């Protein structure tokens, strides 16, 4: 194949088709990133109404290695714009990079792996058209994100140059990771591996800039996230660091094209690794199968909880300084009698438990997923009862939730211990996390009851979690009535270490969880599978 003739026949039709098919996903991605920046800008203005507040916040963050590691270099923090760039910067940039790599992975390798690309290529469609169409869409998404981010900040009345620099950071970083994903998509024929490769590059970029930003900033130059943050939005903008960003994107694009020319449709540059010829002894029982199928998911969620918990634990020590002079933040962590640090740790545990509940629902819904994907049918055609089959996944969900809570408690405890709390806090914080076990199991039971009784409506489990999240994060600030907040099982758990332990609510949660589980099992036994 020659490079001179790139056949683009059908590109615009394909691009329109992608927009039609993925319109909801596209809008949700763009909307949530713009909303993140808008909400941050509004909250910064509310939290720090005067220059004195901003100066205090800047002073608090300046020497805070943990905050810098998770947000970015401390630049221009005594301005509203600088605070927005600090608070929404690193997380927003990670989200825009995720958006780009997931979209590219799905639209290129995902389509190819599913065999749909083959069908398209059998039509009068140019060889480069599907990839170019996907790239055009993702490029446009990034441009729109950049424009919306800049526009939002301008509407909030922030300086023009900073707003444009900040918006451009989003657009160009997204572009770089779209190109990273394009290269990864040539390497493996497995879409999940593509996500893994591109995700690893993103993770490395984040860690390198964290290390650099804590130090003298040199190491940050190894990271694309570091490059765009070096443009210093709202802190004396300089534009030239966008050049390596654009150059990297262009270079990756050329690499992707060279690699694409060396491979066949459907294959990757790296051949797939063979699996095992025979099954291990564990893989002969339903529980062994469920563990094997969900192992990766537990590890992934565990890593996420670990990182979040370390982030929370490592700033626990400075929370008193941070909050003392700020009424809004103090309200957020308000709790009669307990110290601010204790309230903060209790809130952290509740948030980590809510994050872990995401795993719980996903893991329990695996039962329904196995059913829909016709994986359950041949298993249930062996002498495995429905109860035993469902129980195997329920055990993984319930056991996995304990693992995640243990990771959360230990990680918060150890990181808080290292920054000043002392090792002695670890066992206590582990217990403060594990106290959420009954609430997690209630979520298992609830999800399973839906699977047993209304298999077509299981998505409601996610709505329940969203409700619990809103109650848990914003309930106090929104001034919601007590009875409404009490509906969330996470509110029933004693908020340790800021409150006293009491066993009764935990027993009630366990009984409800058990009742829901029994109900779900009765429903599953009675209904049709499939």
């Amino acid at each position, binding site marked *: 194949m020659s490079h001179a003739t790139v056949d683009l026949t059908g590109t615009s039709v394909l691009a329109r088709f992608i927009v039609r098919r993925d319109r909801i996903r596209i809008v949700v991605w763009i909307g949530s990133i713009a909303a993140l920046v808008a909400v941050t800008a509004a909250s910064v203005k509310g939290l720090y109404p005067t220059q004195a507040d901003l100066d205090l916040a800047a002073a608090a963050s300046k020497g805070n290695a943990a905050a810098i590691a998770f947000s970015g270099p401390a630049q221009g923090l005594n301005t509203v714009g600088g605070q927005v760039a600090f608070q929404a910067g690193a997380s927003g940039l990670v989200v825009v990079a995720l958006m780009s790599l997931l979209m590219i992975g799905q639209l290129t390798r995902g389509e190819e792996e599913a065999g749909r690309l083959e069908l398209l290529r059998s039509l009068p469609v140019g060889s480069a058209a599907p990839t170019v169409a996907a790239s055009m869409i993702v490029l446009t998404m990034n441009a729109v994100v950049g424009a919306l981010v800049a526009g939002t900040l301008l509407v909030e009345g922030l300086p023009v140059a900073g707003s444009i620099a900040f918006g451009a950071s989003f657009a160009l970083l997204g572009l770089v990771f779209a190109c990273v994903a394009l290269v990864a998509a040539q390497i493996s024929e497995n879409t999940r591996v593509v996500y893994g490769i591109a995700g690893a590059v993103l993770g490395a970029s984040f860690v390198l800039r964290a290390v650099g930003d804590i130090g003298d900033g040199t190491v940050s130059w190894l990271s694309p996230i570091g490059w765009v943050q070096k443009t210093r939005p709202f802190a004396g903008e300089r534009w030239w660091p966008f050049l390596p960003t654009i150059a990297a994107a262009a270079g990756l694009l050329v690499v992707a094209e060279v690699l694409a020319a060396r491979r066949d449709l459907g294959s990757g540059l790296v051949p797939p690794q063979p699996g095992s*010829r025979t099954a291990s002894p564990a893989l002969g029982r339903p529980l062994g199968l469920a563990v094997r199928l969900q192992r990766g998911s537990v590890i992934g969620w565990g890593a996420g909880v670990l990182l979040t918990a370390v982030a929370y634990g490592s700033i626990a020590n400075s929370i008193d300084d941070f909050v003392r002079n700020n009424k809004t933040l103090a309200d957020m962590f308000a709790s009669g009698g307990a110290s601010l640090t204790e309230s903060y740790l209790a809130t952290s545990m509740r948030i980590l438990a809510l994050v872990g509940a995401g795993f719980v629902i996903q893991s329990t819904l695996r039962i329904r997923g196995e059913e829909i994907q016709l994986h359950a*049918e041949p298993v249930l055609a062996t002498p495995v009862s429905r109860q035993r089959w469902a129980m195997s996944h329920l055990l993984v969900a319930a056991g996995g939730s304990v693992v995640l809570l243990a990771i959360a408690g230990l990680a918060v405890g150890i990181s808080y211990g290292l920054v000043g709390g002392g090792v002695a806090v670890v066992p206590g914080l582990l217990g403060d996390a594990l106290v959420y076990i009954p609430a997690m199991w209630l979520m298992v039971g609830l999800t399973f009851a839906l699977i047993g009784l209304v298999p077509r409506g299981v998505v409601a489990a996610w709505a329940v979690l969203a409700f619990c999240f809103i109650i848990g994060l914003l309930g106090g600030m929104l001034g919601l009535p007590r009875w409404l907040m009490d509906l969330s099982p996470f509110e029933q758990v004693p908020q340790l270490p800021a409150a006293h332990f009491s066993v009764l609510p935990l027993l009630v949660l366990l009984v409800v969880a058990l009742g829901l589980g029994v109900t779900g099992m009765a429903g599953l036994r009675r209904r049709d599978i499939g």
Partner: protein
Amino acid sequence: MTPAIAVSGLVKTFGPTRALDGLDLIVDTGEVHGFLGPNGSGKTTTIRVLLGLIRADAGEVELLGRDPWRDAVDLHRRLAYVPGDVSLWPKLSGGEVIDLFGRLRGDLDQRRRDELIERFELDPTKKSRTYSKGNRQKVGLVAALASNAELLILDEPTSGLDPLMESVFQDCITEIKGEGRKVLLSSHILAEVEALCDRVTIIRAGRTQQSGTLAELRHLTRTSITAETNRPAGELADLGGVHGFEIDGARVQFDVDNDQLAAVVSRLAEFELRSLVSHPPTLEELFLRHYGDELARERALTRGDRNDQV
């Protein structure tokens, strides 16, 4: 002896759709039974009832003398099943899936497993994600055929297999038949059914149309006749039981109802018969005769396929 499968008046509805509408099916001990019907006629739904995955709305269903819904787990120790579309966990290898099913069933025969993997030329180390349709089907077949189950329930088991593998499959079923085990074979490959099955049941729109040995079914239909005569035999067209009559000079071609066969052939002889070729209907012709016209009419009337319901 109780039959392996005894179904009568089976009804199953999905919302407004009546997927099974009084279906009957008898599979006797020691026979390979062909289960035929157009797409969406209810074959898979019947099999799912037999496996206890879905519950019958009405009718009698017995599998090996017991209730497939209530006694599912016990019954499943005695049967092996191959779905029409073998859906595998992407990250497990074919070998792992075969072992898993063997162990879940509790009768993994290592020697037989390895022999079947060889015969079907399956690479057991590949991840399921990378298997083609035919290879996924082979995984399902090896997992089922490696068992010693007394009843095999096979739902279009060879879809996607190449002719070479198709013949390996037929050899395997012939061996199983020799061991006196029972097989319910739902299939669209009529040559496969003709080669393997003792009896067949043909269903349509959730009802049994016909059931019997191939010879019995043939008897109920027509024989094709091609003949050459010295005198033009045009007047045969008016005889009762003659269909699709065509004449081309000395040559005539027609189908005749089997109960009129003797009368028509003796009339034919009167026109100074020079040559005569007759052949019984192939299963394919049987099938088309049953469904050809009716299907066209029905498809025009009802939209939508039962298949996407499941």
